[in-house]
């Protein structure tokens, strides 16, 4: 668990982050979101002390980070940035080996780890290990960046707009891959973005910050979209909150109706589909009702009323 206790960062008279208190639970993805100048990157980099707080404390599992050896602290925390920052003079394998090498692992252990990580991020080691960063696409580079950050299997991963410079199609793919990885790895991930759609998509919780590092709301995405705590939050979330929120809810969790005498509607939707997809199917269906299936089992029937109910 990462705990911010009244953490501030001031540059002269300018307050970048003001009295921020925040608890980030282990194994969760917490997204720090907000417009530029809201101090989200500053807050992130205070965790690995690339930026030192002006006041307040940040502790990891109860230990104040200010008292730790700064390089040891950083080696225990994965760090991914938008520009990736791969070492251009080193191969992909050498890049990924950075932290294990700093930690003094032996060659065989490093080689095995590098191979494992390349497999994990979907880059075949034989094909990619010996390439130089210049020979990779933007998406591949960012994958290597993630693999490098996971080098010594840190408990915490800091990601500063990691997919910000990637085209939208590949970005969604990388987001999905991150979520897939997280299901296996259960890291504590702190993720910075200015893109609210990305925030609600990947965050277990979203901390929304406004100018000067003021915490406006800290909540689960479904909560954030349903109940913005302030006009600022509502404005930052933008139009169509409730419809977008449906994308985060699953059909399985809705209260489904029993199939009635008139038989099952021909249209079907999967139990793990989002309520947005279900709504789309309902709007297309002649009867306004759609059968919910989990593989071969029929779970029930969903209609606009049950979607409305589930979304409240």
């Amino acid at each position: 668990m990462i705990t911010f206790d009244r953490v501030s960062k001031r540059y002269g008279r300018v307050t970048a982050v003001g009295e921020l208190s925040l608890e980030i639970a282990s194994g969760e993805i917490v997204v720090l979101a907000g417009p530029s100048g809201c101090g989200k990157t500053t807050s992130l980099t205070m965790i690995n002390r690339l930026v030192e707080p002006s006041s307040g404390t940040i502790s990891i599992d109860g230990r104040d980070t200010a008292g730790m050896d700064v390089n040891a602290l950083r080696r225990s925390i994965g760090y991914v940035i938008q520009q990736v920052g791969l070492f251009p003079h080193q191969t992909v394998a050498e890049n990924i080996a950075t932290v294990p090498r700093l930690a003094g692992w032996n060659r065989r252990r490093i080689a095995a780890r590098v191979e494992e990580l390349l497999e994990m991020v979907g880059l075949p080691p034989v094909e990619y290990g010996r390439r130089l960063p210049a020979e990779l696409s933007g998406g591949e580079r960012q994958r290597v960046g993630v693999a490098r950050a996971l080098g010594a299997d840190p408990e915490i991963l800091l990601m500063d707009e990691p997919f910000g410079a990637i085209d939208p199609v590949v970005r969604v793919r990388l987001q999905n891959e991150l979520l897939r990885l997280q299901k296996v790895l259960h890291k504590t991930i702190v993720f910075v973005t200015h893109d609210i759609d990305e925030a609600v998509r990947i965050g277990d919780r979203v901390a929304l910050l406004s100018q000067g590092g003021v915490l406006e709301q800290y909540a689960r995405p479904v909560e954030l979209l349903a109940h913005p705590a302030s006009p600022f939050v509502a404005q930052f979330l933008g139009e169509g909150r409730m419809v977008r929120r449906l994308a985060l809810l699953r059909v399985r969790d809705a209260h489904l109706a029993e199939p009635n005498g008139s038989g099952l509607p021909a249209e079907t939707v999967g139990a793990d589909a989002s309520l947005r997809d279900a709504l789309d199917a309902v709007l297309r269906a002649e009867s306004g009702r759609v059968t919910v299936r989990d593989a071969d089992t029929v779970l029930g029937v969903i209609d606009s009323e049950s979607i409305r109910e589930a979304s409240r």
Partner: protein
Amino acid sequence: MSIITYIVDNWGTLGPQAVTHIEIVAMSMAAAALIGLILGVFAARSERFSTLILGVTSTLLTVPSFALFGLLSIWVGLGNPPVIVGLVLYALLPVVRNTATGIRAVDPAVTDAARGMGMSPIQVLARVEMPLAAPAILGGLRQATVMVVAIATVGATVGADDLGQPILEALGRSSGTLAQVLAGVIPVALIGLTADLILAGVQRALSRGTAREAGG
């Protein structure tokens, strides 16, 4: 009248002079590389120090070599020592300038990532900045070496027994011949060219992954 014949006939003197010439250049460049790298690193870190050191080293280059060697011989005596010291001073500018430029040209994202992964400042310098600045630094070393090989001939005026000697002798005597001058000039040119080719090779070898291939 063959220059080749002249060189062969006088190899007994010219050979050792060529060796001395190479020694003087090698010693000067070793010292200049060491000092220049250190000064260059500091210049990359501090804008004020950069302005100061580049000003000083540029000014040094404007001092005529004849005068500089003469002045230095007052403190370190005649022979090779004043020449070596003088050449170090001349060689500093290209080395310092290219080291500072090379380090500054490293993408901040790369050093940011390096620090973020827990590299100490020395590790960032040794493992990231220096390797990435290597082509530029080698470019500076090439410039300095070629320059120093030529200027070393002037060292003959303060008693350095290098390839400046045959030139100086020829110019100082009415009986001096063109062949005698060339006997100094041609080996000097060959030494300069060879050194440049070797350093160019090293530069290429160290340029892996770096887009910059700073010329010499």
